[in-house]
């Protein structure tokens, strides 16, 4: 399994009172699968994603990511782990405003440190998302869709094993959003990444192999989606949907 979460719980204290946000979550995600997480606002989707990526510490339970028990690591070790194997895409893009598109894509590569050919890889990725001619633009000079494409290129820069996306189309119009998801799917297939995506959009969720439904901090449904899961031998038999 690529992701194993066992007995995951998260409780915030709000106004002095404990506020359980996630209760007893058990989840397993197979390598190279595409899982959509859906649920009403406030149901704990972002919290779950954050815990799976090690951005926050659970109140109870554990997460094993690509064979590594996340919370047995120190915070710095978790950061190093992310730099090696995890990619992230946010609803609000979160590009560094002081860096150009190219520099933004370079960040994860440079954080990991050194190596030749970083630049050419970043250029290649930007070309791939159709921004080959906007490499030296700053985020403020790009439209929302373009910013999210830079974010996609950044997420794939370090060739992650797992990619988390939190409502990547939430701030985009439908058409642009669809294009972003198509691009995400394509990159995912090529890089054979495991993809966990939170979304509100039922149509987008339908494109996943599997849909996990959250409500009130619990998994209330976990079902196969329209797209078939990859076969056991790891080859992708799913044809892109029209």
């Amino acid at each position, binding site marked *: 399994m690529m992701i194993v979460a066992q007995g995951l719980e998260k409780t915030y204290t709000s106004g002095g009172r404990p506020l359980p946000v996630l209760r007893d979550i058990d989840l397993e995600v197979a390598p190279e699968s595409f899982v959509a997480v859906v649920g009403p606002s406030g149901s704990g989707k972002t919290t779950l994603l*954050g815990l799976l990526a090690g951005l926050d510490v659970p109140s109870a339970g554990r997460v094993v990511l690509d064979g590594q028990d996340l919370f047995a690591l120190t915070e710095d070790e978790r950061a190093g782990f992310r*730099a090696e194997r*995890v990619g*992230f895409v946010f609803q609000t893009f979160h590009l560094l405003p002081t*860096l150009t598109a190219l520099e933004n894509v*370079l960040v994860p590569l440079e954080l990991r440190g050194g190596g030749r050919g970083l630049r050419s890889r970043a250029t290649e990725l930007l070309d791939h998302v159709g921004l080959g001619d906007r490499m030296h633009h700053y985020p403020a000079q790009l439209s929302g869709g373009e910013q999210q494409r830079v974010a996609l290129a*950044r997420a794939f820069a370090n060739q992650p094993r797992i990619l988390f996306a939190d409502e990547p189309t939430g701030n985009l119009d439908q058409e642009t959003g669809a294009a972003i998801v198509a691009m995400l799917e394509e990159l995912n297939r090529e890089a054979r990444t495991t993809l966990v995506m939170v979304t509100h959009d039922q149509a987008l969720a339908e494109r996943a192999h599997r849909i996990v439904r959250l409500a009130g901090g619990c998994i209330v449904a976990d079902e196969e989606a329209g797209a078939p899961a990859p076969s056991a031998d790891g080859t992708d038999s799913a044809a892109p949907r029209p």
Partner: protein
Amino acid sequence: MKLGFALRLAVRESRHGFRRVGVYMAAITLGVAALVAIHSFRDDVARSVQEEADVLMGADARFEANRPLPDSVTHIIDSLSAAGVDVSRVTTTLSMVLAPKSGDVRLLQVQALQGGFPFYGEVETTPAHSWGRHAREGVALVDPAVLTQLQISLGDTLAVGRVRVPVVATVENTPTDLGYQTAVGPRVYVSQATLDSAGLLGFGSLARYAVYLRMPDEGARHALRQRYSSVLRATDVSFRLAEDQAHRLSNSIRFLGRFLGLVGLGALLLGGIGVASAVQVYVRERRPAVAVLRCLGADQWTVFAAYVVQAAALGLIGSGVGVALGAATQRVLPVLLAGVLPVPVSTRFSPAAAAAGVGIGVWVAVVFAFIPLLEIKDVPPLQALRQDFEPPRRRRDPWRIGAYSALLASVFLLCGVEAPETSVGLVFAVALLVTVALLAAVAWGLTRLTRRFFPTRASYPVRQGVSNLFRPHNQTLSVTLALGFGAFVVGTVMQVEGSLLDDLTVSFGQGRPNVLLFDVQKDQVDSLRTLLPASARAGLEVTPLIMSRITAIDGRTPAELRSDSMIPREERPRRWALRREYRNTYRAKLGSAETLVAGRWWDGTPAAGDSGRAVSAGDLVPVSLEEGIAQDLKVGLGDTISWNVGGMPVESVVTSIRHVEWSRLQPNFFAIFKPGYIDDAPQTIIMLARIPDPTRRADFQRALVHVFPNVSALDFSRVQEAIDSVLSRVRTAVTFLALFSALAGILVLVGALATSRLQRTREGALLKTLGARRTQVLTVLFTEYLALGTLATAAGLALAWIASAIMVPHVFQVTFHTHPVPLLVIWGAVAGLTLAVGLAGSRGLLRRPPLAVLREVPE
């Protein structure tokens, strides 16, 4: 416009975030505090001086001259005395004083008293009520420093010239003293009779002769001045009334106070710059909220007014606190400046100063906040729907132009009012604007250079840190202005001070003479030479002093020259230059502090350039004049000057003009005669010797008093100590006031970094999400703060260096040298401070999990 709604809105809005602007208001608080303190202090001093006018002089009027009063004046005094006016005679001279018990010798001021001076005020002595005993009983009183310097105690005797007097009391405090006067040399107080029999007042001594009068009737003393003005004008005796002296004093102190006021104004305007930049950031944050309000139907002026009200309210609070702080500081100033102030200053709360402080504070807050706030009125309601909608910018908004004009006018007005003279204020305002513009320009240039040339091979966190300086809404410029201004002020003070100290070292330091002998008679020179330690004989400098007066220029007497109606008044020779007593000399060589600017030296060496014209003196005596005195006398090459040299008439021709570095501590002269003409004129000799070893120096001085009681020796190391102590006092006062500017700068820094903290925190969390380790995030922050501090100081110090390179030679007339160490220290301090403030504000960033930060909705 709906005023009620605007006010309610102001109150509600101020709950959210406008408090951050409050940090900058604290900078305004400091400025107001400095202004209020200085204004009130100025009033305090002026009032105290006027109230104490008679005590300050110790009398109602005074005659004074630097030689015995001429008969014409003595007659006036005698007739006053006969008419029942109280008269008291005070003569002061410098003399070597020996303590037979310890064998120690010092050059001291000897003050002889006859009569009841001071007529007003109390002289404090130990034991009490001893003042006057010296005049009546032929004993001596001394300043306490004399006891320690000569290692004696009360009851021991002192040898002053030929007489011995017992010391019966110490003088703790005299009402007429300006504190620092005793720094030159502590005093011994004796009677007039003692001084006469001591035989000190030989030819050429540095003496002052004063006669004090008690004339409580103001009309009588004005009438006196009226009646004898023509008699007095014919002499070089000055006649001054107590109120004139108080007036002059309070004028000069007012000047000082106003100068300090400008420093306070600097802090205030710095606060203004901070307010402007904080409001700008605040406004940007509030734009969405403003857009929503506009959607809901609020008109632009109502919303705008709500924010102006907030600025004014904060300005009012800031200034109010400033007034309180200023009232406290007002009490500190007299303590700090205790040694420099002429009278004990009583402090009194000044409502006028407080009101002016509040008014100025609120005005500065509003006028600086106004420009960024104008953006509020232009926020389109559409922005509530589409965040990225940017309205087309109106290029020439009359409001904007008006606001900028008001700001400029305010700066000029405030400077003009605060400054000692309006013109000084205008110059100060222009200098301030130029400094700010230059700082901005230098900061801009440096950021461009950094951006362009920063090595792309540097590690990623370092590059990220540097590029953070250019993040949108960055505070780089306001921090650069605030810190740069502070660095500029402190850097300039240190550079100027360093150059002045260098100059002192040139005068006193290695290899320079450190003992000055004066009142040496011509026939004593050779035997005095043998008295010196052998090592000091070679470098001995012997300079004759010849007292002379001018009797005519080109054949016309001073009186004729002054009253020649054919010559415009300003082209006539200056009165003081014609009348003064000159200490001239003759010598064969140019001194090290002299350069020829016109004509030729005795040996034919011409002045540089083509002004080295040769002038023949014919049968007359060639003379070389200093350029300033030549100008005041309105003479040039080839003019003849007739002198009375100790009763001997001498006709001279100006054959050269010299430039003299007066600040060099060495004997310099207005007029130098060619040797071989007047060498036999009545003269005294001054000698400069170098005796490095302090014990040998003391031995020599002791022997000198025994063998040549008429010769005085001045130990330069004592003078240097005195100068050092005055310098350090001035440094304390300047530092104290610079503190206000520096603190204001730090507050702006704190505010600026707080403003961008949210953004920084989010970026740090993002980097951690992308896999950055703690050290990498820290390196980014470290680099950013270090770069920011460096940028600001680099700009400020570069300007400080330029300013001192201009000021040192032109204002202080001293050679400028760069002092890199203080500059490095300032850089280290400011960069360290920026780092400390920045990292302290970023603690939370490292502790909180990245998810929490990313969840917070941006904007």
